[in-house]
């Protein structure tokens, strides 16, 4: 994947600030329920499993598995040339929690469902974008 010259950045909001800025300290931060321990994404004010309001972002390992992916061949955005891999990765801590992301650091045709990946961050203005790359074998 050619690194994009431009990305459309997310609207950082109170509930999503931890997710988009945790990378400044090298942390992938995911919302978790303190009552039942459930991780969930996107962040919200209530646990989607037990309905507790006692929820907050906390750091996770950043290790994940590719649940699925698509190789995009169409240019949708200026400064973001195809091909590139869009994936949903499932957190090691809780596989049902998926993050949309890009898989980089390998050719698109090397990406497979089940591949183990790890997070790294790319800073764009006030956002540290979580991206994933294959775990070194």
């Amino acid at each position, binding site marked *: 994947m050619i690194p*994009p010259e*431009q*990305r*459309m*950045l*997310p*609207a*950082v*909001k109170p509930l*999503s600030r931890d997710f988009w800025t945790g990378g400044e300290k090298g942390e992938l931060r995911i919302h978790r329920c303190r009552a039942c321990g459930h991780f*969930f*994404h*996107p962040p919200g004010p209530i646990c*989607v499993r037990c309905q507790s309001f006692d929820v907050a972002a906390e750091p996770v390992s950043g290790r994940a598995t590719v*649940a*699925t*992916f*698509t*190789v*995009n*061949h*169409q*240019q*949708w*955005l*200026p400064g*973001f040339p195809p091909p*590139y891999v*869009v*994936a*949903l990765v499932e957190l090691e801590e809780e596989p*049902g*929690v*998926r*993050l*949309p*992301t*890009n898989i980089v650091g390998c050719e698109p045709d090397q990406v497979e*469902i089940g591949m183990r990946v790890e997070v790294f961050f790319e800073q*764009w203005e006030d*956002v540290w*974008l979580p991206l994933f790359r294959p775990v070194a074998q």
Partner: protein
Amino acid sequence: MAAPVPPGGPMNPLAGRAVISGAGQSQVGRRLGRDGLELTLEACLRAIGHAGLTPADIDGVATYPGPISPDPGFSGGGAGDVIGGLGIRARWYLGAMETAGQLGPIAEACLAVATGMADHVLCFRSVWESTAQQNRGRAGVLAGGSQGRGRADGFYEWFAPYGAMSAANWLGLMAQRYMHEFGLTREQLAQVPLNARRNAALNPNAVYRDPLTLEDYLGSRMISTPFCLYDCDVPCDGATAVIVSRREATAGLPQAPITVEALGTGMYERPTWDQRADLTTMAAHDAAHSMWGRTTLRPADVDIAELYDGFSYLTLQWLEALGFCEHGAAGRFVEDGERISLSGELPLNTQGGQLSGGRLHGVGMLHEACVQLWGQAGERQVASEPAVAAVAAGGGPVAGCMLLTRNG
């Protein structure tokens, strides 16, 4: 055929009180250069006329999505535009997007006539995306979104930073997972667009009517794996309207009333493109499950199926969701092409769907089901005189479906 387990509740709550008494469509095509509201009003007047009514008889209006238009050409006007344009004295009206997909406002119209809120509800869906987007192309529309003007919000907050701007990406993710789990092949997936093109050849209003072969399909450019160009529907200009009537108000009208047997309106999980517990199902399964709980009919009773094909894979999802085949078996269900053909056991997307007929956004599927049940489909008429039709619209977190019968 496998029937999903119904959720209980009153069997057949509509009790045959809501019927479809007429249907109409505007000119349909690419880059017509006509105003969206003009197309809307053309379709509405044709539907009213087809039902043997005049605008003075219409006392309700319902539409998706209303006058809002997130993308250029996505809406050819709201309920208010039609009330004003046709001089309708509406006792009940609705324009809505957060509902059971593109069919949601029509489901609401059924409830309105069933409860006596209105006698004849004019329901429409209108798009003019081909003209509105002609100078920039499909991709240009999305690129013009919030780029340079702000930041990605709503669910785009989670997808846009990664260049996942299109439903081709979001649904490509789901289709790829499905292929991984169930072994669906591109050759099987191709049967949906190939069937659509064969049927479109018999539909004078279809956008693409030239023959399409498997080789054409496999040789076309990729959009977002596993979807190639022919897996994506074609933006067009066109409006569709149907009249939903209170059964008792249809005496003496020219068209045999089509009974709305059941509505599928369920949403059992968070409406997301990425967090559904099972990535190989969609909100379609919730809608279908709720529908089968409201009727004693079963999938085996259905004669024709008009199932949304904004992307080819969505039709396969609907086939499974509605119980026409087991989960994971849709590829094998369609692979010979014969079963879903006009002479097969389950004729599918008989007007060419949206893949070849044009992206009329869901309500075109309902129009086609009605035309087939009335026996008015011309060259593409299913010869076996279909009496029961399944109609579905939407993909991902968007879903609604209907079951129609000719002899209510």
